[in-house]
């Protein structure tokens, strides 16, 4: 298994009570709460952690994109990827991903990603997402165009990377007389494309058909197993057998000497992540048109945005793994076998977790977990496990 260090770069000094009073850390939580001195400190702290991950032997480091939120300070992840492209010497560098429909000019992602692929001499992984619903409120992009714009932008970018330029591109949302980006990607035909999603069946089908690596975001492991099985089934329908390398699980891991100590230490920071930084009203998460009506009804019925999430439930349901080195090894192996993935996208910093604890966690993972999983692949038939 490959284990990546996935950072959300939260503004961890946020006033959690103010977020609760506002109802969300997104869109309407005033940036008056952002202190530039503290924020600048956090950028350097987090980039230092990514460089440490490289030295500790993590297989990759991951960034992502969110807008106008204390949840993550990476509206333009390419800036941070640029900073890391030279200081992260060995590990892969992944942006998971840029939110294509938010862009009025997706050619700039073709350019940005090609630059990063050159800078890293082919260690770059290109993630494409639609962005969550809140992004459409924050960026003034029509959610009803989200799926169309994603499809068109993806098509444009891949063609820009693979088809000799200049050529003309005419779509509904994007028109270019000259598609001819310099540089071209370093990897041939282009960097690996990864597709993170909350589990939309149409996204899973499409990723499987395209043979793109599918990354499942924050979900109970039983749900992850079901979605990964859906991917394997879709791959089969498309005429090939999906490899576990095409499946990545995005999780959070915290390791301490004992289970009790790990839970005690992680608890307030996980609570801040799920009950403060992630919280938003349904209307913000699901603007009309963002998903089809059936999906919106399903998500509304599940009332995912309403109730608080207990940290014990997160652990019990396998959304996160917290415990002693032995517990974490057992759980991760169990989950790998259950869901059949071969990449773990692991948040080692989460919520309000401070620097010293994050570094201790990263070091413990590097020493106690990584070596045991380096050559480990899913052990038994995932189909049997999922059924």
């Amino acid at each position, binding site marked *: 298994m490959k284990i990546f260090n996935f950072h959300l770069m939260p503004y961890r000094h946020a006033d959690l009570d103010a977020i609760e009073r506002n109802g969300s850390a997104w869109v309407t939580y005033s940036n008056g709460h952002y202190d530039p001195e503290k924020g600048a400190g956090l950028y350097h702290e987090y980039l230092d952690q990514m460089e440490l991950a490289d030295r500790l032997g993590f297989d990759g480091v991951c960034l992502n994109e969110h807008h106008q939120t204390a949840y993550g300070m990476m509206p333009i992840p390419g800036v941070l990827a640029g900073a890391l492209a030279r200081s992260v010497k060995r590990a892969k560098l992944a942006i998971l991903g840029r939110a294509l429909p938010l862009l009025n000019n997706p050619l700039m992602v073709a350019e940005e990603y090609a630059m990063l692929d050159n800078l890293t001499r082919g260690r770059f992984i290109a993630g494409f997402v639609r962005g969550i619903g809140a992004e459409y409120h924050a960026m003034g992009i*029509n*959610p009803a165009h989200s799926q169309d714009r994603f499809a068109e932008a993806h098509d444009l970018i891949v063609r820009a990377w693979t088809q000799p330029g200049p050529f003309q591109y005419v779509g509904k949302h994007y028109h270019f007389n000259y598609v001819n980006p310099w540089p071209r990607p370093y990897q041939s035909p282009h960097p690996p494309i990864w597709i993170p999603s909350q589990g939309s069946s149409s996204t899973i089908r499409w990723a499987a058909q395209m043979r793109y690596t599918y990354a499942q975001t924050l979900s109970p492991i039983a749900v992850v197993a079901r979605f990964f099985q859906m991917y394997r089934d879709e791959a089969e329908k498309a005429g090939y057998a999906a490899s576990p390398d095409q499946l990545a699980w995005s999780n959070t891991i915290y390791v301490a000497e004992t289970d009790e100590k790990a839970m005690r230490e992680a608890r307030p920071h996980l609570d801040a992540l799920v009950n403060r930084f992630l919280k938003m009203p*349904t*209307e*913000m998460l699901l603007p*009309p048109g963002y998903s089809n*009506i059936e999906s*919106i009804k399903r998500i509304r019925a599940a009332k995912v945005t309403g109730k608080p999430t207990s940290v014990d439930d997160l652990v019990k349901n396998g959304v996160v793994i917290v415990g002693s080195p032995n517990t974490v090894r057992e759980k991760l192996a169990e989950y790998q076998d259950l869901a059949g993935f071969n990449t773990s996208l692991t948040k080692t910093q989460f919520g309000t977790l401070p620097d010293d604890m994050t570094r201790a966690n990263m070091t413990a993972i590097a020493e106690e977990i990584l070596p045991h999983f380096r050559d480990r692949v899913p052990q038994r038939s995932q189909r049997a496990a999922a059924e």
Partner: protein
Amino acid sequence: MEEPTARNIDVRGCNVAVRRAGAGRPLLFLHGASDAGLWTPCLADLAARHDVIVPEHPGFGASDTPAWLDTIADLAGFYLDLLDQLDLANVHLVGHDLGGWIAAELAVRNTRRIASLTLVGAAGIFVPGVAQVDPFLRTDEQRIRDLFHDPARADAMVKRAARPEFEDIGLKNQTTAARLTWQPRGYDPHLAKWLHRIDVPTLLVWGASDRVYPREFADAYAKLIAGAKLVVVPDCGHLPHIEQPQLFVATLEEFLDRKRAAA
């Protein structure tokens, strides 16, 4: 109460649900984002003297959602086609909220079949510095309550919207409303440039406490459409035709009578 006949009309391959009642001069009522599919007492009252025609816009209610539907201007073109197809003349065109926006776009393009224009709490233009509620960040219930001056008047509509059989239609209507109005939010920056072309008598009816398109929007429309008459309805929110139906009908009839007398 005058009961309408309901039928579907196919306009160049797009099937729309149309309610129609009464006799007299045709009155085409274009609904807003929140009142699609409602046959309200005010429409029944108007049908006593007019041939009242109330379509559900493409993308709303029981009507088709055609692939060509992207903008309010598309709907203006669609209704010009519909007027041609039904061969209607001397039409009193009444539009509320985004229906008012459609009506304004239509009248800017072509008033050949139009006798008068009435905009009710209409969207379509931008007025700087005026606070508006953001319907897309409100819950289903809040969004309905925002429409009314008197919160008690909202109860019936809240109850109706909460009925499970309306969930699909409600989501469909919201999705189309987002498609048409999300960005720029509720207006077309190019519309205001051409409103001077409207050459039919125009009435503006606005609720005094409209929080969706506040009264400043009425003043702005009044400046942009030459000779437009503005009537502000007291104790009324965004839905004058529903919250103050008698006053609304009286205002509209008086305007249409005076227009007739002048003609």
